[in-house]
Structures are given as C-alpha cells and as structure tokens.
C-alpha cells in the first residue's frame, strides 16, 4: 500500500527505489525495501538466529524440566501420589519400553494413515517444487510473537506432564527427540512429513493405551497435549510446505469463490431467514469462526473453529425453521457460509488438518462430522455449476462473467427495482453495510454502463457528424464547382494600377563626360 502511494507521488527520489542495503539493485516493499538477493541473505540470518534461539530455549526448558522433576520427586513423595488416581501408582509408573519405539515405527507402516490421506487429499501426491520461495516466507519480524507462543505451549506441556510423573517425563523426551528428528528432515514431501507425525502419534497412543490398561479417556487427553506441543513447534515448517501446490490451490479457490459472489441463499436452497436478527447474528458468527480457523496452529484448534462455525449454522437453521436442522439443511448452509466468508488459505488448512490431526478425530466424532462437511463444501464449490444452482447454463455464464447480477431482478437486467436486496441484512449493521455497499457497487455499475452507453452515442454522433459535414462540403462543391481562372502573371514592370506606391523603375542615367 505505502509503496503504491510512494510510487504515485510525483517526486520519487531514485534512492527510494533502490535496495536499502545499497547494493545498487532495486528494492521491493514486499522484501522490506531490499532486493531479492539481500532479502534472502537477511532472512537466512534471522532464521538462523531463530533456530539458535529455539535451541537455547529448548535447552533452558530442559534444565527447568529436569529441575522441576527433581524437586517433584524430592518433595512430593509417596503420600501425594498414592492419593491420586490408580494409574499413577508407582507400580504403573513406567511407560514400558520406549527404546523400541523407533524400531516399531519403521516396521509398522500404518495403512490407516495413508488411506486417510489418500482419501481426503487425492491430489496431494503431486508435489512440485516451488521456484519462487521468498514470496511466501514470513517477514522476520513476525516470528517474534510466534516463538513466544511456542514457549508458552512448551511450558503448559511440561506442567501437564508433571502430573503424570515418570511416564510424563518419558513422553516429553520422546516428543522432543521427535521434533529434533523432524527438523533434520527438511526435504521430505508433505506426505512423508504427515506419515512421520502420524506414525509418532500411533506409536505413542499404543504405548499409552497399554500403560492406561486400555482405558481410552486418559490416552486421548495425553494425545491432545502431545499433538498441541508437537504441532505448535512444527507448524511453521509443515503448514503449506513449499513441496506442495497447496498455495496454488488456495489462490485458485479464493478466486473461484470471488467469482461466485453472486450466489444467493435461494440458489443454494439454504434455510436462513436473515431478516430475523438472531439468525443474521449466527450467520455473522459462523463466518467469523470459519475465518478464524487460519489463525490457529494446532489441528485440533482449527477443528474447534469449524465445529463452532457449524453450531452457529445449526442455530441459524433451527431459528429459521423452528425445528432441528438435518443434513439436507446443513451442507448447503455450510457451503453458503464458506462462499460468504472466503476463508483464507482454505485448502492449506484442510490439507494441514488432514495430514497432522489424529485421524480418528477426522473420521469419527462430532468434530470429524463437521470437518467432513467442510471438505464436502470445498469440493462442491470447486465443481459447482449451473445445474447445482438450478440455473440455466446461459444464466450461470452471464453471472460468472459479470454481465448480469441476480440481485437485481435476474437476467433481464431490471435495474429500476433495486429493492429486494435492501431488506435482507437490515437487521445486522455489518450486513446492512455490506448490502449497502453492494447496492452502491451495482448502482456504480449501472452508471458506468450509462456512461459507456453515452460514450458509444457520442462516438456514433461524431461519426455521423463528420459524414454530414462531408456531405455538406460535397454539396457545396457540386453547387459551386471550382473555376480555374486564367491568371495573368503580373510583372512588377507591367502597367499595374496597384503599383502606384512602388518607386518608379530605375532608368539608366547617362553621365556626360
């Protein structure tokens, strides 16, 4: 933005455009005023520093943890631990042979994991290297806050595991080793990364399952924390990784949704009556929730956003229809919400959740149900055509190309009406504003149309004017043909009456002598 205004200014100092490092190349605002080469160097430097910081922090945390464990073993002795739940009794405290962990991981290729992925992301296998890498790198300054959050998550994890005592410590060790291991595997494809993480989950869950004697609830609790810890740390390197075309798909989806801006509630057969304030409130909340998904880092937190969004949709339908929503109501409504929200990086988020969430959460459970519906909505939007909106192919084409807008009386271009859109969002200020803006936009559109029409008229006028002028000229020319008068070339010396003022011709004078 600032760059554009600068450029627009009249006085642009040449030095403003050059790389801030003074290397002589032109800089770019997207690279903080550096040229691509200097930016890459700078980015590497910052990143290197951050890796070092991370390591320092990890070491510090480890010392803290060890101290914490030492003290908890020293002071918090038998009476405490025996009073707690049976699974925390000393006899059960060992989590079994973790050393076999790695072996097992490699031996056991989990079919489940791969099939889930294959299913949810049929095209994720076509990985392609991206040429332009600096385009998507986060700016060095934004990573500060992120690393702060990461610290907090690490501390919470340690606090949680302390309650588990000895096994807690083993879990922590395993997780840390895993993260270190992962950071050395930068070149893996997205699927391979996913497989590593899923294998780790599976191994950990198996181990916990036997530790907790097959009782699933504590296992799930621990696994949630493990996922949170691991994925917070890995997020930056595995979300929308460069080895995939996730980013390209995000852009395609975003453009597609933008092109579908004209789709109405009626076309999708959604049971929302947005004139009821409570309904439009829920619609706005649902939109907010689905947009918020992108800001979460832990797959389960992203799922949480989808679930909250879905609950608001259910409420909106129930209030509208006065009966609980069925699947036939829900899916179209979710599609509508996704179209209205155009959630940032939708495909990347779906892929990330699919790759790194515990698969049982995606295929079963309430969260899984809503996530599956979101996947369906995304797939549906990709394929959406005239038939799925009950439109004729011609209408669909006209709307897609922007030649007509269904908001104003549909294909016949009934501009005068203008009314129907106004009422819909009146209840909610934001929606009303939106509608207002939309109306302004379309009235602008119609005015532009009028201007264009006038311009065309003017052009036609101009054409006919020149023609009429030509015709007139012709007429005149015909009436008064050009007569070529025989013209006598007058010589200065001739007897010309007009030449009175001329000095008399010089006459030779003869001098006697």
């Amino acid at each position, binding site marked *: 933005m600032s760059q554009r205004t600068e450029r627009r200014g009249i006085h642009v100092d040449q030095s403003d455009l050059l790389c801030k490092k003074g290397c002589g190349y032109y800089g770019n605002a997207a690279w903080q005023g550096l040229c691509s080469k200097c930016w890459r160097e700078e980015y590497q430097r910052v990143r290197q520093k951050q890796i070092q910081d991370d390591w320092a922090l990890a070491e510090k945390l480890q010392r803290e943890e060890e101290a914490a464990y030492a003290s908890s073993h020293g002071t918090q002795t038998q009476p405490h631990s025996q009073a707690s739940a049976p699974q925390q009794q000393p006899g059960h405290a060992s989590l079994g042979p973790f050393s076999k962990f790695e072996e097992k991981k490699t031996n056991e290729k989990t079919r489940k994991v791969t099939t889930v992925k294959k299913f949810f992301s049929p095209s994720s296998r076509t990985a392609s290297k991206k040429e332009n890498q600096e385009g998507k790198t986060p700016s060095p300054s934004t990573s500060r806050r992120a690393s702060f959050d990461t610290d907090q998550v690490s501390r919470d994890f340690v606090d949680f595991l302390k309650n588990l005592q000895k096994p807690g410590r083993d879990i922590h060790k395993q997780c840390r080793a895993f993260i270190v291991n992962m950071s050395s595997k930068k070149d893996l494809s997205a699927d391979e990364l996913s497989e590593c993480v899923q294998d780790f989950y599976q191994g950990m869950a198996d181990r916990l399952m036997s530790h907790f004697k097959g009782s*699933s609830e504590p296992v799930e609790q621990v696994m949630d924390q493990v996922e949170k810890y691991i994925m917070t740390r890995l997020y930056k390197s595995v979300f929308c990784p460069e080895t995939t075309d996730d980013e390209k798909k995000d852009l395609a989806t975003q453009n597609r949704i933008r092109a579908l801006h004209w789709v109405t509630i009626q076309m999708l057969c959604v049971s929302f009556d947005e004139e009821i304030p409570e309904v439009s409130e829920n619609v706005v909340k649902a939109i907010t929730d689905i947009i918020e998904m992108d800001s979460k880092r832990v797959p389960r937190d992203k799922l949480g956003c989808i679930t909250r969004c879905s609950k608001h949709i*259910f409420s909106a339908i*129930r209030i509208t229809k006065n009966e609980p*929503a*069925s*699947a*036939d109501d829900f899916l179209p409504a979710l599609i509508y919400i996704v179209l209205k929200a155009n959630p940032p990086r939708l495909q990347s988020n779906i892929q990330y959740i699919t790759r790194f969430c515990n698969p049982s959460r995606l295929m*079963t459970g309430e969260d899984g149900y809503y996530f599956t519906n979101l*996947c*369906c909505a995304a797939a549906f939007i990709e394929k959406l055509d005239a038939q799925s909106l009950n439109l004729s192919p011609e209408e669909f084409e006209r709307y897609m190309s922007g030649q007509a807008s269904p908001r104003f009386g549909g294909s016949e271009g009934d501009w005068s009406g203008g009314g129907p859109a106004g009422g819909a969002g009146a209840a909610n200020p934001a929606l009303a504003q939106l509608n207002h803006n939309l109306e302004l936009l379309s009235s602008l559109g119609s005015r532009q149309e009028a201007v264009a029409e006038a311009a065309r008229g003017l052009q036609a006028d101009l054409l006919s004017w020149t023609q009429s002028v030509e015709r007139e000229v012709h007429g005149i020319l015909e009436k008064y043909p050009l007569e070529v008068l025989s013209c006598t070339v007058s010589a200065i010396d001739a007897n010309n009456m007009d030449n009175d003022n001329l000095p008399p011709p010089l006459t030779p004078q003869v001098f006697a002598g």
Partner: protein
Amino acid sequence: MGESLPDVPGGDQERGAAFRRPVRTLRVKMVLLGGSGVGKSSLALRFGKDEFRSTSPTVGCAYLTRVVHLSEVTLRFEIWDTAGQEKYHSVTPLYYRGAHAALLVYDISSRESFIRAQLWLKELEKQSVPGSTLTWLVGNKGDLDQDRQVSAQEGKKLAKDRSLFFTETSALSGDQVNELMLDVAHRVYEHVGEEQGGLTEWKETLPEEMYHRDTSNPLSSCCKVGP
C-alpha cells in the same frame, strides 16, 4: 438375551456388568446414505431418540449419538446423516470413509430410489476399500405396503448379489428399527470390536477379517434380519 437398548439410565444390565469388570465403551461410526426423501433423517431420529443420556441439547439431527448395551460391551453409535440431493453425490464417499457401518436406504414405494441406491453402491464400491465397512441395504417406509414398487424379494436379491445385509423398516411406525440397530451392533462388534484395547478409533477396521461376511447366517436369535 441379556442385551437391550436402554431406556433407563444405568439399567440392571449395566449395573450387573459393573460388578464383574468395567464395561468398555466402543465408538461405532454409522453412516446413512440414500436419495432425498427416502427417510434417512427420520431413521436417524428414531435411532437417536431412545438415547437415555442425551448429550448436549441437540441443535441438529445431522449428527446423533446412541448408546447400545451388549452383554460384554457398550457401543456408542455416532450416526452421520448425509445430504441426499443428487448434486451432493460426488462428495458422499467422504462421509463413508472410516465408517464401521453404512445403511444404504431406499423407499419401497419408489422404484427410482431403489435404482438410485444401486448407482450409489457402484460409486461406493469404486471409491472405498472393499470390506472395511459393513453395509446394510434398507428398504424404508415398509408401512406403505399398498404403494409398494420394490418387492422385498428384489431387495433381498440385490443385497445378496452385493453381499450386503438386508432389512425393511418403517421409520414412521418404528417397525424393525430397533432390530436393525441391534443387528448392526452385533455384527460390528463381532468384526471390529474384538480389537485388543477396544478403542476402535485408534485402530484400523481390520479389512482382512471383514472380507468374509455371511449374510445367510444370523449371529444369534435376537437379531433376526429382514422380513
């Protein structure tokens, strides 16, 4: 048989079991498929209705849960309803994924719905790992016998050809609905629930073991199938 669909919280059955050892609760995912208007949502509501411990006040009936007690185990059914309109067919396999049971529903008073069920079947067979989900063909609206367009014989034959289980139900009268639920519970437990540890959501659904299904051999007398 000591098995029941509970209508009282903590019935005798459950208490009795608690003395022996804690009864495990396994999660079962069941998907409802079929054309629009065949009665999927009505069936889902029927299944979910008798649940004694209604979870959070249900905002919708697209996702419902139902607990079924068998003699050695408790199954917590998660019932996934799907949108039936044709335009959503291409995305339906997403729901099917990871399901332990699927009910492919048609309306016995509509031949079209029966034909659509067959198209659906083809689609599902194409897309999913064969044998990973136990599938029932369900002829619903059994109460509309006077308008019947699909005979029970036809349904049975289709089921047999595709090695599906078969039954006719009425979501309206409730006829055969509980029987179907128990049948699903038994068979799913038989195939999936033997897993050591019993937490199905962490385990594969054992494709190999589930290949060998036998429609002709009901597991026990309490879950008689079909008319």
